């Protein structure tokens, strides 16, 4: 498929980029910019839907589709190589869905609207690049590029400065976000170079297929830079692990998140939670697990457990402590931000189960591994991708509503709210709906992913799963706390003359999200079948 003479996936990466440049260069008329940006976003969403349907219609084996490869940076051995499978298709769809909604919400920004909207589109371009890349250099490029628009969004359009504070929160938050993320990817950059150098290629699939050999192909039984091959691989693994762990975020690398979310503008929060966190999880699924299967099952020095178990343990801490932390917040956006730590913890523990079983199968020399173990892996991985998708929907919705109420009241302090349901019944209903989606109420989307993850991890990390139930319990507590302080109680007459009800843009965005939430909750197979075929294929491939 081609659009304007370029293949459709490259188009999906480039169109938001040029769209963003277009919006930035439009004359300073905010309505022109708004409608243009929205039009571009919706059009790109249409393309993602078309690609998604095309994938479902044409692919039955879960393999890559619409693959295109162009010469690009040949001197390094890299190439412009794009393609989708079921996992990236779902993430692409999520990105395509959330961006126009974020654009719609950011109409409330009247300060330099052109640049603001352009940055949202640039971010979409970078995210698409990550999800569609089949080449490690392309992946890395877009992965780093995604930081730039987000940094400026937080830095320039974040919460206004508080009185008497020298450094505003947004400066702190954006700097922390950028430095932390970039610092995290330093190790990954080195590891990427190492992989490319020793494997002689940046093809993700090729490296994954040769995962056992990529360091030893050229230098079997030799030391590399004076270190044993195993150590070098472990170091490279740590580089990737930390980079993506910060992004997911995995406890204890999560503290940038509440700050960034708290200060970011509403649209920034939506994309940050909805899309950006998925970049990290996607990196684990796509790169870290297939590249380092034997490292995942090797012991962590000093800890006496293997890396996958350590990862599961940290994820469990994220689930439990994230929930506790959210419960302790009085700032509505920070509360929702911590809920991301909590929910992405489930993604983490699902990835850990995937990694462990993938690694075990790999180490078992592709020989028989108990089929029920493979079923566990399939379930956990399916659940992980579902959870990524679902968290994208519900966290974007939560930030949308939280941002909306902040925009109207100019305070994020929950204790200043109270009884909003009286004045804003539609907002109230929507807030409860989104909260329940986030909570994982069966019948809505969140449950599907959590259910599959718990099913997958139970036989693998039994005790960690049990402990993470504590987090699931407190998920209920912080969600109810949010509802209680916002909607319940007597109406705080301080807000008597405020219009607290949703406006038509928020209404539209929530309805769109709501359709996906209910649809996924009631009949998840529209997307799960796509995900499952690719997940199954990935796991089958190691068994030869």
């Amino acid at each position, binding site marked *: 498929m081609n659009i304007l003479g370029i293949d459709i996936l490259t188009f999906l990466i480039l169109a938001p980029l040029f769209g963003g440049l277009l919006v930035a260069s439009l004359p300073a008329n905010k309505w022109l910019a708004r409608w243009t940006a929205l039009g571009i976003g919706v059009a790109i969403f249409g393309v993602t839907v078309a690609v998604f349907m095309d994938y479902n219609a044409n692919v039955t084996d*879960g393999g890559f589709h619409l693959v295109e490869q162009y010469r690009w940076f040949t001197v390094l051995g890299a190439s412009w190589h794009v393609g989708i499978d079921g996992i990236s298709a779902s993430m692409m769809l999520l990105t395509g869905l959330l961006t126009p909604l974020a654009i719609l919400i950011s109409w409330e920004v009247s300060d330099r609207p052109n640049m603001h909207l352009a940055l949202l589109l640039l971010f979409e371009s970078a995210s698409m690049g990550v999800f569609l890349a089949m080449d490690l250099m392309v992946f890395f490029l877009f992965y780093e590029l995604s930081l730039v628009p987000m940094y400026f969004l937080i830095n320039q359009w974040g919460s206004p400065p508080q009185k008497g504070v020298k450094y505003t929160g947004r400066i702190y938050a954006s700097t*922390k976000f950028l430095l932390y993320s970039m610092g995290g990817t330093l190790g990954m950059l080195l590891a990427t170079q190492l992989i490319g150098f020793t494997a002689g290629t940046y093809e993700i699939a090729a490296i994954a297929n040769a995962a056992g050999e990529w360091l030893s192909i050229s230098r079997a039984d030799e030391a590399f830079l004076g270190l044993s091959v195993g150590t070098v691989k472990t170091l490279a693994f740590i580089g990737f692990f930390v980079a993506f762990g910060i992004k997911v975020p995995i406890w*204890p690398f999560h*503290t940038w998140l509440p700050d960034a979310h708290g200060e970011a503008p509403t649209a920034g929060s939506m994309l940050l939670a909805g899309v950006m966190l998925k970049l990290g999880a996607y990196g684990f699924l796509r790169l870290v697990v297939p590249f380092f299967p034997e490292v995942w099952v090797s012991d962590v020095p000093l800890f006496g457990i293997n890396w996958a178990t350590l990862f599961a343990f940290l994820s469990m801490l994220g689930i439990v402590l994230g929930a*506790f*932390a959210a*419960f*302790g*917040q009085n700032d509505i956006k920070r509360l929702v931000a911590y809920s991301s730590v909590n929910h992405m913890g489930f993604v983490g523990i699902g990835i850990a189960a995937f990694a462990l079983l993938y690694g075990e199968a790999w180490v078992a020399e592709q020989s028989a*591994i108990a*089929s*029920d173990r493979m*079923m*566990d892996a*399939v*379930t956990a991985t*399916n659940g992980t991708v579902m959870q990524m998708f679902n968290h994208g929907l519900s966290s974007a919705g939560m930030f949308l509503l939280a941002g909306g109420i902040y925009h109207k009241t100019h305070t994020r302090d929950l204790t200043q709210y*109270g*009884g909003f349901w*009286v*004045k*804003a019944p*539609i907002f109230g209903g929507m807030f*409860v709906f989104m909260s*329940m989606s986030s909570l994982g109420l*069966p019948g809505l989307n969140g*449950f*599907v992913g959590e*259910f599959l993850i718990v*099913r997958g991890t*139970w*036989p693998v990390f039994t005790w960690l799963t049990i402990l993470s*139930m504590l987090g699931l*319990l407190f998920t*209920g*507590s912080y969600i*109810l706390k949010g509802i*209680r302080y916002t*909607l*319940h*109680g*007597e109406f*705080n*007459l*301080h807000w*008597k003359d405020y219009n607290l*009800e949703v406006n*038509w843009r928020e*209404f539209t965005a929530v*309805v769109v999200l709501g359709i996906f939430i209910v649809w996924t909750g009631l*009949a*998840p*197979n529209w997307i799960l*079948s796509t995900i*499952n*075929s690719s997940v*199954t294929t990935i*796991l*089958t491939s190691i*068994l030869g």
Partner: protein
Amino acid sequence: MGFDVISEFLTQAFADRNLMLWLVPLGPLTAFALISLITMLLWLVRQVTGGQENMIPASDPHYNDHNHPDYGGMPVPYQPDWFRVTAVIIGMSGVIWALIFSWTLVFGSLNQFGAGTFGLVDSAAYHGDDDHTEATSTDDHEEETHGPAEDCAPCVYGHEIVWMSLGTPDSTYGLVPDEDTDYEIGVLLDPLNLTLLFMVPIAMLGIFTYSIGYMAHDARQAKFFALISLFAGAMFILTLSDNLMMMFVGWEIMGFCSYSLIGFWYEKRSAYNAAIKAFTVTRVADVLMLLGIVYLWNIAGTLNFRDILANPDVLQMVGSTPAIIFGSWGLSAAGLIGVLLVIGTIGKSAQFPLHVWLPDAMEGPTPVSAMIHAAAMVSAGIYAIIRMYPLFVGLTNPHASEPTFSAPLILLAVIGSFTALFAATMGVAQRDVKAVLAYSTISQLGFMAAALGVGAYIAATFHLITHAFFKALLFMASGSVIHAMEHGEHHVHEHHAAHGHDDHHDEVDAHSPPPEHGVEGVSDVHHAPHFDPQDMFNMGGLSKKIPVTFWTFLAGGLSLAGFPLITAGFWSKDEILAESWYGFASHGSGLHALVFFMLAIAAFLTAFYTMRQIALTFLGEPRTEEAEHANLGGPYNIVSITMQAPLILLAFFAVFAGFIGVPEDFPLFGAIFSPEHNYFHHLVVYALPFMENGGYEVFHVDAPAFNIIPVAASFVVALGGLWLGWMMYGRKPLEAGEEDPLIKYLGQPIYSALQKRYYMDDLYDLVFVRPARWLARGVISLLDKGIIDSLLHGLGWLFTVIGDFIKMMNAWLIDGVGDGIPKGIYQLGGWMRGVQNGRIQFYLLIVLAAVLIIGVIFAISFGTMLAS
């Protein structure tokens, strides 16, 4: 999905009983969706038409009843009356739809039940050739029906669709996407849920009808009908599901609905705290239950009830595999799964120690209480156990001559019997008319749980049904009482207002920034209003004011008390006692003995507090002015009719429902009501599989033969309790202001302890709630901010210091050299510029000086060169 697909489905569903099962929950769920959609559309229309005109001052009597503050007349959005009426009609249509299809299914299937025709009894044939893969299937591969097959005529009705695609291991360890491991959900009708499908819709119809009157003055009536419709739909999903996951879906949605409805009057602190408490406490159990579900799925490879329960291989395997945790202690996988699922029931059915949410749940509107306590929520917990009963029994046999009990059974028996007694003791000291009923619910559910623990699952089912009828009745009747009292209060209030004593019922001061105890603070639920229309000590003599309510309440109360022979409660309770006595007397089983004696005492207390409640509420003379004026606004208005008609309907079932389950050898009554066999027993027994060789005779026991001891016990405890209650409260009704005679007999400390629920709420607050809140704050301040961020900041500081150091080095060393050169040139240039002052003499002077210097340098260097 186009409309043709939907209409085709409907056409088929009307004709095919397998598909018709889907229609039952569809009605209420559609009602919920419709009301929600119309609400949103209405709002949109208002937005488009720019409407602030649909705002109304909160003090307007159309908006404000006693449950909302008036906010000093602040304008609030308001739903027009026509919409509220529409919502009521939609909600009623939904429940009537459900009733029609439920009863079509129930009575259509009834004529087929019996050995080998309806139910799993003949499951050797059923399972022998695995009919469900080759059952009459529609053209679509994804759909299978379990219609009447020839070799299994008809086992059950059911239909399945693919819900989740999951890859599957094939024979050679490869994974292929395979239809065999796709997760299917479906509906099922067998003799067990047939009984529920009879009871639930009629109870719900009563509750819905009642809500019309009860909520008639509430501005949020549309929302109320949407939510109870969802509640009803969820209950039908749970009742009809053929797999544990879908049951869990209904289970949790009901949890959400009860949360929303308990907190329906969300301005009241007691209401939202109770709502949060209900959700949180049940969630404790639910997350553990979730583990049980995933473990079952993991080990059995399916969650389909029939694939597990009618499959001896699976049961044998699950029962003999050591559990994944605690397996070394002798716990089997079935035991662990059973315990986890029982914990779910303990939460949902409000058993000790998770019973604390249920008494508070009466903060919601009364129809919600009826819904939670009778028709839906708490029944679901017991139903889940009965549904999965073979799994709970595992490889043990509570009916054997040497009875053995699995871990979940022991848990059920102990918790159930303890809760039955424990809650009954709290019930005797309550002052609130609904609180008494709340504790009686906990206690009666304890009866069922205990019965399940000793293998009496048919008796438990029977009690579940009869209890639902009389408890729904009692709650709605008490709601009617409260409504009448509020009416009286209103009257008195106006009366006083006319005399200048204007004291507002709802005082709204400017919203004080909440110093609330936060989400789970519950200890302050009862902050004293100046008049409590629910306090039984404010009532008295209401039998004359609201006679219909009185007589129906009496019927329900006697049924609850187990008044011998003529009430439904007697027959079901008697069956539980008979079964537990039988196990004790015949096999010397200690667990049976425990259950029997605990339940007998609990039944005695039940009869006592029921009589106390009836006497305090209805007998004697009115003790307050409000009670004197209590009424429902005349006999022929909408409120009075819709609130009392359901009472009459349910009173019928509360009395007569018991006669379907009279033991056939019961003297006289057996001959009249069970000429062939005990109908209820004969129906439900086929719900569980029976196989000669698979060890399933466990579930297919006959009811114990008639024995005079348990029947005598039933007589004695019921009549004795009622007599004692009558002696204390009925014979000489209390005067106004007289204190509870119970205080005299029990002593104030014990009475207070009972009334304060043994201080368990305070204990939980101290042990769980406060530490959790403290921990939540601690995690933030200590861990995230204190440790992690400090490390990050430390790192940042370190780099800053290094940077500063390097900067300093730059300034001294590099800048000293690097900057020195350009700086020198610059200064030189400046100096040079100063030189060019345009005066020839000066230039000549400089040239001379230069020549001199150069000459000197030249001379010196030349000299040194020569010298060397």
